[in-house]
């Protein structure tokens, strides 16, 4: 059984930042492996360690700089990686769900995985829709917000728990092939070991362009345009306790006594 794990490098933002047009000034941006995808990689690697899966392949849409993040996924146990990028993508302002799906659809067709595991959402643009949209596009079954996956060798169905709101979980049987979007907490993602990091350098990282995949430039142009970015206005009038820790703690202690919740 082969598992494909779409992995994203997300932008992280410092506590203090400035906005430049419709982006955050790059001085305040960092990059990291998307948190939800980290759990998806771990789930795939555990399935391989359990002898259920033979190969774990990652795919990332991103420029050369994302290779550092891709190597993280390889160091955690993925067998090989595909990176998709070219000049056309460089010029796309907002890669929306439809655009991502157009690319990933081509990868699924080329790789023909039995299972696609990816994060529920990404920490930067938080669309939360790519996995399910991909499943529909390629004709796979799917499950969104999965926090438990049971799969045995030769199973044709994945038994999953989907995490609903309010502490309720839904138990569902999903036919394979399927795309599952993975929620945090499903497992404990490993740190990349030194040995894993060394091995990752030798693993195959294949660069593909849209032309290689047969994806037309029109398909990734997207229908959404980001027109403004700003810091949200505070909804409440917050009283900020000023001063050193002793002063602020004393002010908070007074408040708690005043509210009658502490003596």
């Amino acid at each position: 059984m082969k598992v494909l794990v779409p992995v994203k490098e997300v932008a992280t933002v410092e506590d203090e930042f400035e906005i430049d047009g419709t982006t955050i000034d790059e001085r305040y941006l960092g990059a990291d492996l998307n948190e939800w995808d980290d759990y998806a990689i771990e789930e795939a690697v555990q399935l391989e360690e359990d002898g259920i899966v033979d190969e774990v392949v990652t795919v990332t849409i991103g420029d050369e700089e994302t290779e550092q993040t891709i190597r993280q996924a390889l160091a955690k146990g993925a067998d090989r990686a595909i990176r998709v990028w070219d000049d056309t993508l460089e010029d796309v302002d907002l890669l929306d769900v439809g655009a991502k799906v157009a690319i990933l659809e081509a990868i699924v067709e080329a790789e023909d995985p039995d299972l696609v595991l990816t994060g529920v959402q990404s920490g930067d643009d938080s669309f939360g829709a790519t996995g399910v949209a991909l499943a529909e596009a390629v004709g796979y079954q799917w499950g969104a917000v999965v926090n438990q996956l049971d799969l045995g060798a030769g199973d044709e169905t994945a038994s999953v728990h989907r995490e609903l709101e309010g502490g309720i979980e839904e138990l569902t049987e999903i036919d394979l092939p399927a795309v599952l979007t993975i929620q945090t907490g499903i497992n404990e993602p490993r740190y990349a070991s030194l040995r894993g990091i060394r091995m990752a350098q030798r693993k195959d990282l294949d660069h593909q362009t849209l032309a290689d995949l047969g994806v037309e430039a029109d398909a990734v142009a997207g229908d959404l345009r980001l027109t403004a970015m700003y810091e949200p206005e505070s909804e409440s009038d917050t009283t900020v306790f000023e001063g050193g820790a002793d002063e602020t703690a004393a002010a908070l202690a007074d408040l708690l006594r005043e509210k009658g919740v502490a003596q």
Partner: protein
Amino acid sequence: MSADVLAVAEHRQGELRDVSREVVTAGTELAGETGGDLHVAVVGGDVETFADALTLEGVDTVHTVAYGEEFNHDVYTQAVTQLADALEPAYLVMPNSVNGLDYAPAVATRLEIPLVTDAVGLATEGDTLVGTREMYGGKVETTTEVDAEQAAVTIRGAEWEPTEAAGDATVEAFEADIDEDAIGSTVTGFEEVAGGDVDISEADLLVSIGRGIEEEENLDLIRELVEALDATLSSSRPIVDAGWLPANRQVGQSGKVVTPDVYIAIGISGAVQHVAGMKGSETIVAINTDPNAPIMDIADYAIHDDLFDVVPALIEQFS
């Protein structure tokens, strides 16, 4: 393409969920801008009873699809797509709930229309839909324009007031042609997460911790504070994901909803899923080094300082 709007209701275990009345509000606003009708769809379960409850102010027609009991994404995808094909609405409005995210992207893909998820605001400018969304965990808000005649959106829960006033909508049964061979998933049951001995939803004073505590051993410091204040300990999701506290301590959309007299959020940035579970607290106090953390938007009182300085000083105040 008509100027109409189609909103999709949500129910679970026999109850309409609050977001059903919220999609009606969002749908009414959009239909007001386009000048079209508002259609509401309800799929599965006791559709007659749900249709009565959805006959709300602003709704022109409620379409019932009597198929199945509980949510099944294959059924929802087929039913909503067929209804959208029949009505040709300009906009489709669905909840950005766990189930919404399990069918809305498939509907948009099948209809070949753009999708804007997790909108916190919606407006139109001429024929263009403008969605307001958050990025980077709520640190910034963005406006996104949709260049298409028809679009699908999912709306964040609790951002629109639920419509409560009754209306005079027409109820119509929609005969969806559900292809049973295309149903590839089966819901076999529901489970509640582990209960445990403490019910955080009953507490008057909650000391709640997040990622900011950094290491599991730092929990000792927080437990000391909890004891000094005679409070109850709760947390945001990452603490439970890390296995440092059991699931019954989790506050948020997927955990418990709490409404204590005072909620002290320590090292919690305030992801929307967390805020959904605690914004009803009477007084919210946030202790966080980051003055721009989203939790500050809803905090009544704030300390912009290192928790490892403030918490020991606070313990000192009560010992």
